[in-house]
């Protein structure tokens, strides 16, 4: 035990004496928060939406046909009650709901005016704005067309309502993304050099010819990185609360628990890279190139995963940050409990265990 503590202490000394790396580790999350503050827009296709028709008349049928024929939307199923819609939103099954009230047809025939309700999930504000704009334009088109064909002016007005993030602030979307991205990159990069550094410096030779066990070496290497990452996590949470006015809606404890699980998973990825790498440089490159791009693309933070072709979607399932992103969005933004994220948590735990076990097995007790 004393051996382990001494080893861990040694690792901390390494970290604190390398000022440049330390600065990078803590500077990165802050820089990311600032950088991603600028909104990123993107085209949206095949968004899953729900359509509820309480009126069921020729006009609504026509309008629904028009909506479903557009490539922007993918009508999931007819959700028939407010509760069902609410549940679908929380699960993230739908991005938007279009509701035709029961008196739609009577209003339209008697007054020439009617409203439909459009509710969008604005936890991703760009997506919400884009798809509500699409629906408004489709309804506007429909108005003009019917006026041309019947000569009667029709006025169907969409009433747009933004859920979860009524002010359409960018922060709620990018903070979970930055958390996933930063933690993943920092953890993998820090750890990817850990073991291979000892190999490169030749100190591994001495460590192997000693009573010290491989598992102890691994634990000592991971401990400072875990601690630094937890500090980073708190920095991000405090920064977003202070400057972006974004507070954790759900249980902070649950968020921290899931974050530590995610950190451990990322550390294990770095560990595996480090154990297999020949030089520090190749380990660093592998973690940067190999992790940066998939994490950026496949987390669902910059580009919605449902817009991707299916092979990419399958690939995205292998990216741990993808699951963590879902957890953070649900717990932090929507205030949901463990019941809503247990599946994602379980997937992360599985990934973490598997990666750690593989790393331990692949740790070489001899040279070559």
């Amino acid at each position, binding site marked *: 035990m004393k051996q382990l503590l001494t080893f861990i202490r*040694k690792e901390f000394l390494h970290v604190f004496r390398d000022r440049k790396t330390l600065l990078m580790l803590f500077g990165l999350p802050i820089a990311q928060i600032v950088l991603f503050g600028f909104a990123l827009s993107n085209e949206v296709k095949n968004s899953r939406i729900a359509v509820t028709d309480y009126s069921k008349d020729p006009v609504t049928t026509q309008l629904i046909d028009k909506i479903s024929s557009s490539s922007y939307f993918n009508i999931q199923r007819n959700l028939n009650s407010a509760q069902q819609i609410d549940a679908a939103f929380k699960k993230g099954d739908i991005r938007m709901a279009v509701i035709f009230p029961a008196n739609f047809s009577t209003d339209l025939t008697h007054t020439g005016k009617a409203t439909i309700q459009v509710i969008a999930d604005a936890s991703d504000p760009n997506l919400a704005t884009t798809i509500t704009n699409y629906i408004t334009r489709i309804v506007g088109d429909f108005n003009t067309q019917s006026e041309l064909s019947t000569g009667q002016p029709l006025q169907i007005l969409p009433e747009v309502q933004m859920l979860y993030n009524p002010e359409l602030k960018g922060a709620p979307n990018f903070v979970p993304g930055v958390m996933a991205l930063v933690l993943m990159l920092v953890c993998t990069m820090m750890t990817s050099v850990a073991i291979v550094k000892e190999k490169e*410096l030749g100190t591994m*030779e001495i460590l192997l010819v000693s009573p010290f066990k491989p598992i102890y070496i691994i634990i000592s290497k991971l401990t400072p990185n875990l601690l630094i990452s937890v500090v980073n996590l708190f920095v991000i949470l405090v920064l977003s609360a202070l400057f972006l006015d974004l507070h954790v809606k759900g249980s902070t404890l649950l968020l921290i628990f899931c974050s530590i699980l995610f950190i451990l998973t990322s550390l294990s990825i770095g560990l595996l890279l480090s154990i297999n790498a020949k030089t520090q440089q190749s380990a660093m490159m592998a973690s940067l190139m190999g992790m940066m791009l998939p994490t950026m693309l496949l987390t669902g933070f910059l580009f919605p995963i449902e817009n991707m072709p299916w092979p990419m979607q399958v690939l995205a399932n292998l990216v741990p940050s993808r699951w963590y992103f879902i957890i953070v969005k649900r717990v932090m933004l929507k205030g949901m409990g463990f019941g809503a994220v247990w599946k994602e948590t379980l997937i992360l735990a599985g990934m973490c265990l598997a990666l750690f076990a593989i790393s331990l097995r692949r740790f070489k007790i001899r040279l*070559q």
Partner: protein
Amino acid sequence: MISLSNIKKTYPGGTGRKTDGQVKALNGISFNVDKGELFGLIGPDGAGKTSLFRTLTTLILPDEGEATVDNYDIRKDYQQIRNRVGYMPGRFSLYQDLTVEENLNFFATVFGTTIKENYDLIKDIYQQIEPFKDRRAGKLSGGMKQKLALSCALIHKPSVLFLDEPTTGVDVVSRKEFWAMLKKLRQEGITILVSTPYMDEANLCDRIALIQKGDILSIDKPDNIVRSFPGQLYAVHASDTHRLLQDVRSFPGTATCFAFGDSLHVTFKDAPSGSNAPSGAATGSPGEPQALLQYLQARNHPDATVEKTGPTIEDCFIHLLKN
């Protein structure tokens, strides 16, 4: 204490294919080192010294052969061996960003001991670097680095000490000090296996093995190895050493000629081969040195001298390589 029998190790070639460019590092090495012996492995770079050290410290597995360290098998009981030996790799392998004291403390704890407990053993060595104990190891001079590395390898009172080229890249004074320390450690009963590319250090060992390209050329006490040198060796000296070397080599009676310091070490052929060489004894013709002197003076080396000299380990090594 250490015993090897027919240890073979081949590294795969660069292409990765089995038959291509294999490097034979150890070609059936066998020897024994007794308890408390200071045993030297002498050979040039690439002779297989480091491979041998790594085999004995269980860092690599040999392809063939058996070896034991302190009666533990290098394959089966690798953990036992790792727990009790001290190993100082050829490359400086301490933490450069930790201070002298932190390094020593770390290795003491890893081996489950404290600096206090075994301070007596390292006192002589450590006292020399103790004034710099708060300096980072990376900022030490070459000699001090080696002293620190030796302290770290000794801190757990190992039964066997493996030192892979401990004096390479170290100044002459530090090298002398280093060897004096090894002599002292031997008196403590620690078995020491040390390798060096410096032939002059061979005389400081109890026994030495001359090793070249994975083969052992000779194992004996340094004195015996020197004594076994056949024939008479001559030192040839002149001011223009470079031209002298070419001229001596072109002399028909010359058997071997190598630069040694600022002179040349020369042996002469057993049988006369040149027209101007008189017949000679089996250990080199007695007339040859005189003939060489005349030969050199005729070739514009007015200050040339040819004198008898005693062989060194290096001469023996070169002689063994030739055969």
